[in-house]
């Protein structure tokens, strides 16, 4: 059994130690908001926070998570009240929506480090998150919007 905290709740899971955190979240804990996109940490769809920093859960073995704190999209807010979610709604960002959990989690981590990022800083920070629908420009706008909502 491996014990850690997800979205403030203590959990214990019976999973092989090499199981990626992504599949423990999805298959063991029923948290489906975190998405599978590539399995090689190349697309960002699986981004969650581990002890406050963004990680690719598809290549993070659950054994490395023992005793740590995980935050997923489900833990951001109960009612889309997180400023980044509000900004995403205000800017009509999603199309298919599949990559957006990862985009949002990456953006939240960015704004925790950098309260008012420039376009170039956003591009660089978000470079690991792929969107095939072409929402990048709206994502960038929404990050600026969220920065304003957060008082930058």
């Amino acid at each position: 059994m491996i014990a850690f905290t997800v979205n403030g709740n203590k959990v214990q899971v019976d999973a092989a130690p090499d199981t990626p955190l992504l599949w423990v979240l999805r298959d063991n804990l029923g948290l489906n908001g975190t998405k599978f996109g590539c399995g090689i940490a190349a697309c960002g769809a699986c981004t969650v926070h581990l002890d406050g920093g963004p990680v690719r859960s598809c290549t993070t073995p659950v054994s490395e998570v023992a005793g740590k704190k995980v935050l997923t999209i489900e833990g951001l807010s109960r009612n889309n009240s997180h400023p980044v979610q509000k900004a995403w709604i205000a800017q009509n960002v999603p199309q298919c929506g599949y990559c957006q959990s990862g985009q949002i989690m990456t953006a939240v981590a960015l704004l925790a480090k950098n309260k008012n990022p420039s376009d170039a800083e956003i591009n660089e920070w978000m470079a690991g998150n792929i969107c095939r629908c072409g929402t990048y420009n709206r994502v960038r706008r929404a990050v600026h919007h969220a920065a304003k909502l957060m008082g930058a």
Partner: protein
Amino acid sequence: MKSTVNESRRTFLKASVAAGGGLLIGFHIPGAMRLGEAATASSAQINAFVKIAADNLVTVVIGQSEMGQGVWTTIPMMLAEELEADWSKIRVEQGGIDPAFANPRYVGFRAQGGFQGTGGSSSVRNVGVNVRKAGAAARQMLITAASQTWGVNEEECYAEKNMVIHRPSGKKLSYGSLAEKAAKVPAPKYVALKNPQDFKIIGKSIPALDTPAKVSGKTVFGIDVKVPGMLVATVAQCPVFGGKAASFNADKAKAIKGVRHVVQISSGIAVVADDFWSAKKGRDALEITWDEGPLARVSQADLFKSFAELSQKPGAVRRNDGDVEKALKEAPKKIEAIYEIPFLAHVCMEPMNATAHWRGDSVEIWAPTQAQSWTQTAVAKLTGLPPEKIKINTTFLGGGFGRRLFNDFVIDAVESSKAVGAPVKVIWTREDDIQHDFYRPASYNVLAAGLDGKGIPVAWKHRIVGTSILQFFPPFSHLLRKDGLDPNSVGGAGDIFPYNVPNVYVDYVLHNPGVPSGFWRSVGNSQNAFIMESFIDELAAAAGKDPFEYRLQLLKNPRDKGVLELAAHKAKWGSPLPAGVYRGIAEHFSYNSYCAQVAEVSVGRDGKVKVHRIVAAVDPGWVVNPDTFKAQIEGGILYGLSGALFGEITIKNGRVEQSNFDNYPVPRMSDMPKIEVHILQGEGEQGGAGEPGVPSSSPAVANAIFAATGKRIRKLPVRAEDLRTA
């Protein structure tokens, strides 16, 4: 747009009492499954366009697939407009399979009930009119019910915001309170649709209804489906197209904790486990001997060599105006070029997946599919079950782009569930997705044009040698002409020829050793517009003319000209640009929309291409939701650039050499140019949104690269090493 619409012979409105009371309206196709029966049999599967309940909520039932293009918002907007609904009372539900949802664009594509599917940028422009009729009929019936209740003349009543109002007295009744009575009113034979100047909802940038769920992680995509007792599978498919497992040893796979079954299915060996990771580990542990089949000898270079050889002979004729050979011979100047287009994968962010529950005499499927009725037909053929025993639940789609018109991933789930006797969710890995796609066709194109003394083209000849889409899509295979012409693969290359050229000849040679080919957002247009709009640019250059002026002079249709001029005007064509930045222009008509784009591009000394900005002008007749429309054009532009600047699938020994995002790159945030979309609203018939942004983006960029470097891009993708100057 007509204000009154006669019902077509195929469909008529049908109203019935909804389960639990209320009004239910849809379309009924004579001889097909009865709408009302399906609707009342189970409240979970409502097959109609609209249900109005006693609580005054209006549920719009969608037969289209939501893959990011916005049908969960635009279809309800069209219905709410005609219904005079209160937008805050609108709810949306995904419908099942029903002839009522047959896509009018594809009427006749299936013997019974039509083709229910989402493609061809057809939801709003083709399905929308039925939805509007349903809304208008419901409004009329609610007005009738109210007038009967009050004992007043119908003409004295009108509808507004979920209420029927009696004008003389000011009396009001809510739709909810009238719904049950309205359900007993005969459905009107004719319905009047509103005139555009009376629109209150259509034409507004209403936020997408599915956004809140998508930013909270709550949206259920196919991969998120959970069914009690469900197992999870991955399938080892032969890396070579058409290959089969000759033998396999599952001992090591079965030894892995969580692995329950290893079964052979049509596409390969399925490892069925308690969860995905166990299934994946089990698959990695399989020992399989493949019978790779004849395609194991096929490689990219040989394929293009065959294409080149075949281009020596005439093909199936797509267009033949005048006498192209004579005109070419007599023209004072002749321009020739060869354009090569690689295979491309779709790479939807959500890898292919589906869930099936085989129950012996029936099967239930949950799938992110673009093609419900065709999938049902395929499963019926596979299992011998009658179609009505095959229930398909459409989930949200994590991207579609044409990939999910195919149903290979659904067949995997059905066969796996049947083999193990439990519900099974099959999940493909990204590697499976890239190596077992139905690729955008590869093609080899021979072009020739003759110019007169003033540089004006008098002849245009285009021979396309390439793979066929329709060979791989049975429901539309009857469209593949007997002489081998695939109108889909040739799409955009001569079905309509936009330029005023007296002698035009376009033909097609189908050649494919067996690489699956498919619909890729905007289909033939995506590559043929690149070729045509690059070649016309070559002619302009040869004539020493400005590429914008040259097109404007030659375009026949005022709407083509209109978007070209608007894009050029908004981009300030001809005005100075920052040092090192150059412009290119292109225009293409597809899916009944006209789209011109001006690209601003720089090319570094290292040969790297930077697209700074694209200014697009689109004439789609009229739009339902300007913001979701613009989002579709933005997305289409980036999808086109993805194909032109990044994407290439190559075949070696019958297998795809690429496997994941590390070797099949796609645009990242910094690769997306600034995009301006200008909508030209005309009086025309409505055009599509999802695809028309794609075709003109790649030639606009390639033409800008020519302006910047003097090098013409005739082989995709664009390669930095070809453009390097230092």
